[in-house]
């Protein structure tokens, strides 16, 4: 009891705004009116603003809470402390900071999780107790972690045309720059380096274009980086293409120029087309690819309502040469008809071009397949697809059957699967993000609907590092970050000035890239702090 008493005493002395007292003290006055003025929809993102907590009077009901954390440097005593029910995230954060003895600059903003119900504290405790049907008599177990601060725009670059998609999943070292690839409505793929931190050079300097490939005859609709250095892309020209890329150091002269502050890049990207996958009858809207051994396994879907699975050999020189001949034959055949353009466009990669037919065609959707994702990027056995026919299907790729069909009632425009929590996130035309349990086979129920966007959702992406962090992009020109343990968005990024179409996390989950109809590629640094 000594420790508890001491800690509590300390809190009482130090925290002037919060009426934190010991249990005995709290028993004296219980008749106070519970003021419920925290019902507003305020997201409480302004962490320093805890003025409203100050107004909570002496008559507040209190609850005993136990603080735990997985961050050893922020650990405080685990004995329970009585805090007012009116406390919100900021107030709780303040309490922990006082317990830690951190003053002004040292202060850390924490996020609190109600462990029993796996819910993030986004409003005052009383609201959460009421909605979660918890008793205020029992000790509330709160786990805290440093809060995710508002992502900081670290780089941006203007493109000549609308950007439809972006991917930055290429694994890079911690200190290295990201390599992102964007797909544009003019049919080009652009590789660029994105600095992890915006230096003094400013935002525009953060993005360096490595190379640009005129990949498709029509708009590019999807692009994926997979494996070490492979890229696949699809577009409205109905073709899925696989590219092999390699970073090349430029000549030392250019390096010097770079040192002098010139804008020319020091590195460039060699991009070679490995294969063109032809099998779709109409434009391809969605694509996801993984590398398994020496093969790229890709799923694609489009307006022909079918999902095509492709298996493309990546690889060794023999294959390439064989493919080369094959590709030339194909090319000759194409020459005969009126399809010269494709040949011309693909000329750059023609040396390694081979044409691939789909390994399997999964049909079942009755409208455009607009979103696709592999269930697990390590073992491509299950593919999730979302369609304009308003259903979400899981396909067993090996058996070529549809295993799960989740019937929604709104057009699906985006899909992402989180294998850690077995949760599918779907973006819909009705401005909502819905979460589904991917293990449920029978009657599917939406686990959670995230409503905050004001236009079609165009993309959803799970953070690779934090299992509960979800990013969503919308045509309402915003990107929102969600902790799916709460239906209130964590942050709203409003830097785009037109529809946002593409969204991608980097492999480490520290950077978020977005691309949109304002032809801008933007990179945000999302702060993380690892637990130990």
């Amino acid at each position, binding site marked *: 009891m000594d420790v508890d008493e001491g800690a509590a005493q300390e809190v009482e002395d130090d925290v002037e705004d919060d009426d934190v007292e010991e249990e005995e003290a709290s028993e004296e006055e219980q008749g106070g009116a519970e003021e419920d003025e925290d019902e507003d929809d305020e997201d409480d993102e302004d962490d320093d603003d805890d003025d409203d907590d100050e107004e909570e009077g002496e008559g507040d009901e209190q609850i005993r809470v136990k603080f735990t954390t997985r961050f050893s440097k922020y650990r405080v005593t685990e004995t329970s402390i009585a805090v007012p029910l009116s406390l919100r995230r900021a107030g709780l954060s303040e309490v922990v900071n006082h317990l830690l003895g951190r003053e002004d600059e040292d202060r850390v903003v924490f996020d609190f999780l109600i462990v029993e119900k796996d819910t993030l504290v986004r409003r005052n405790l009383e609201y959460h107790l009421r909605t979660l049907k918890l008793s205020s008599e029992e000790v509330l177990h709160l786990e805290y972690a440093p809060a995710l601060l508002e992502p900081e725009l670290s780089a941006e670059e203007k493109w000549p045309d609308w950007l439809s998609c972006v991917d930055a999943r290429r694994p890079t070292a911690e200190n290295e720059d990201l390599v992102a690839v964007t797909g544009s*409505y003019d049919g080009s793929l652009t590789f660029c380096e994105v600095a992890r931190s915006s230096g003094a050079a400013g935002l525009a300097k953060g993005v360096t274009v490595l190379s640009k490939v005129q990949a498709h005859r*029509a708009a590019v609709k999807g692009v994926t980086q997979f494996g070490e250095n492979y890229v696949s892309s699809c577009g409205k020209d109905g073709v899925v293409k696989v590219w092999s890329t390699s970073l090349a150091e430029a000549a030392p002269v250019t390096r010097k120029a770079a040192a002098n502050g010139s804008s020319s890049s020091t590195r460039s990207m060699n991009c070679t087309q490995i294969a063109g996958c032809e099998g779709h009858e*109409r434009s391809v809207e969605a694509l996801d690819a993984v590398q398994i051994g020496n093969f790229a396994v890709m799923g694609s879907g489009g307006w022909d309502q079918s999902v095509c699975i492709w298996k493309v050999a990546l690889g060794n020189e023999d294959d390439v040469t064989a493919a080369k001949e094959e590709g030339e034959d194909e090319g000759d055949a194409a020459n005969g008809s*009126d399809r010269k353009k494709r040949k011309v466009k693909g000329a750059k990669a023609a040396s390694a071009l081979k044409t691939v037919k789909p390994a399997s065609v999964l049909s079942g959707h009755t409208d*455009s397949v607009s979103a696709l994702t592999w269930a697990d990027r390590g073992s491509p056995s299950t593919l999730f697809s979302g369609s*304009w026919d308003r259903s979400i299907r899981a396909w067993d790729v090996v058996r070529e059957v549809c295993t799960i069909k989740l019937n929604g009632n709104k057009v699906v425009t985006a899909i992402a699967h989180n294998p850690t929590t077995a949760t599918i996130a779907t973006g819909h035309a009705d401005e909502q993000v819905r979460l589904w349990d991917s293990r449920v086979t029978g009657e599917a129920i939406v686990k959670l609907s995230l409503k905050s966007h004001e236009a079609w959702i165009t993309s959803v992406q799970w953070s690779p590092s934090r299992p509960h962090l979800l990013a969503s992009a919308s045509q309402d020109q915003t990107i929102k970050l969600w902790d799916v343990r709460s239906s209130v968005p964590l942050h709203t990024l409003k830097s785009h000035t037109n*529809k946002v179409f593409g969204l991608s996390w980097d492999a480490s989950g520290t950077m978020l890239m977005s691309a949109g109809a304002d032809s801008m590629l933007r990179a945000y640094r999302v702060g993380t702090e690892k637990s130990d």
Partner: protein
Amino acid sequence: MSSRATRGAALPSGMSEALNGNAYEDESNEDEEVVVEGESSSDEDEEEDVIVEGASSDDEEDEDDEDDEEAEEDRAAAQSAAKLKRATGKTAEASKDAAKPRKFRGDEDVRAEGYASSDEEHEENTIGNVPLHWYDEFDHIGYDKAGRKLVRKEGMDEVDKFLASKDDPFYRRTFYDAKNDQSIVLTDRELIMARRMLEGKFPEQGFNPEPDYVDFFSGEKNVFPIADPYEPKRRFVPSKFERQKILKIMHGIRAGHVRRQGKPESKKEAKNEVYLMWGEDDLAEDIKKRRKAPKHIPAPKVTPPDHRESYHPPEEYLPTPEEAKAWEEAHPDDRKINYLPQDFAQLRRVPAYANYVRERYERCIDLYLAPRKEVRRLNIDPESLVPKLPKPSELRPFPNTVAVTYFGHHGRVRSLAVDPSGELLASGGDDMILRIWEVESGRCLLSHDLSQYAPEENEEISRVTEDGEGEVSTKKGFISRVAWNPQMQYRVVAAAVGENVILVDVSAASFASEEDVEATEQLMGGALAEAGEGDDDDDNEENAEVAEVDLGAEASEEERMQQALRDSRRMVGWKKDKADRTVIFWKEADSGPVLDLIWHAKGVYLATVTATKRSNAQVTVHHVLKRMSQRPLRFVKDQRVQRLLFHPRKPIIFVASKRYVHVYHLGQQKRLKQLKTGSQWISSMAIHPDGNNLVVGTYDRRVSWFDLDISSKPWRTLKYHKRALREVDFHDRYPLFASASDDGTVHVFHARVFEDFDKDPYLIPVKVLRGHAQTLDGLGVLSMAFHPTQPWLFSAGADGRLQLFQNLG
């Protein structure tokens, strides 16, 4: 008459003696009376006989018998004298007269009940209240009820008395009743009573000399009567007066000086009347049938005068100038009150009533013309008559929110068309650029500048003003109509610019498989190679005269074909754009601007409407693949064909002229029907996917719903738009219907059509989409179409906006 007088005198004396309880006297009196009465009644009878002429009915005798019995019952203890008289064989008359004395007996009985104690009943000696010593010298002391002598018993002597005083425990309370010659033993209670009487108290213990007053006659209604007298006999005896009266009347009838009122003939009729034996005897109806006069209508109730009618009404009753003005302006029948309240300081200032003469006159007219009639006023809440519509939220999905806006057009967007899969959207308008959009992103994927096809001179545009009348303005050129080929394999959009029809290959916008590309190319250029000379053949247009030679039957099939081909060449000059190989266009010979173009569902026929003076050249059907054109509807007499519509399944084409919709069978080449819209100028048509319901929108704001199976007149005509309708459309998959109007709104309806005929289709308004502004020249939404697969709607407006509405919620 003297006997009557005696009776009258005798009655009171008899009564008084009876009251005194002197039965003896009473008896004698009665005897007398009976005798007297007997005589008098016989007298009376005689008199009556004179009147009735011996018609003393059997009833009367019966009555008498009854009376007789009653009397016997009532008088169980009747006086012996009366009995004796009866025994001597007195007639019934005498017994009847006994009713009289019974009356007194009745009274006496009441008294006996009220006063007589139980002791008196046991009294055996009936000598009455006479001194006993009168009987001292006799050995009896009186007479019992039967009149026998009561013989005196041997009394006890002194010894006996003494012995009794010793032996009998009740001796002291025993005394001797000399009158009845018996000894009486007093009971304990009687002793107590005697003792109390000696003490001067009330004999009954607990007797309350001053009981609480019970207000019997309080006016409160009691269940049981307080007084309980016998029902008097007179209530049961027929009234003599009435009998007299009746006899008099009967006498009068017989004598002939009293006439009956009814007609003797009606009696016979009544005999012949047939009665409904088992029918309900509905009295009310019977009465109604008999009644011949018109129904009585009561005069209307006059409302009592109120303050307004005062010569000096309170201020609040005086009308404000506006009210007074409104009253003056209103029609006399519409006024709530037929006068205006006026204020006069004094009564004498009130002038003569100006309307007096007129009102009197009107009153007279009213009376004379009898205008009073019953007006049935139905007290029905108008709300209850409106059918209950389901909530719009129950009829989801329907488009309700702007989802995507397609930016790029300048000026009015006049027409739009959706790709059959729903991926792409084509639009065209005043800026002469045909644009192909990606639906989901709002990206313009392809644009074709068609300004080179615009006519050199200004073009006439017919437009409809607000009042439904046509108005013609001019404009340089614009894309007036866009139509997407309904077959997925043909990536072709047809557009109308001025007099030109332009086909644009749009396969570049989105990927087309090789088959599709081939099909499209065939449609666009395949046949043109054969008819290659068409490219340079400029004299087609000069050769305006279209030979409509009716070939004779002897012409061979091949010749026919050749002739048809030549005809069609003359009609239409197909050309390929030299710069852009993806475009072909043509201009019809001898034609005006293209008003409408539609694709047939097969995707190879394109039907166009041109504004031409020659009525038979208005509608042309082009077989695009063969480059053949024909005018199957040569016999269209209607001059101003506006729009065309193909039936979804049957070979039927709907041709809308200004006022009528003609239904033609293309195979049989004949007109099946003519639908009359009843409006001035048709603007648009849409057919329900089931093919039996046609909706026509008109420039005079009406929407007419035709059930093609039933009638050539509209099943319903609706008018809800504020300005001219521009477009109507049915959704292919969802039960949705929409209409776009110049008022800038699109009304969305839930429209359900049933298979069976007994259910009417229903049309429930669910949403008004207000995405477009109304421009200054009075134009709003110019074109509108549903998304082919989703419950979404595209709309194009004169404000240059092109929008997609989606279903939210």
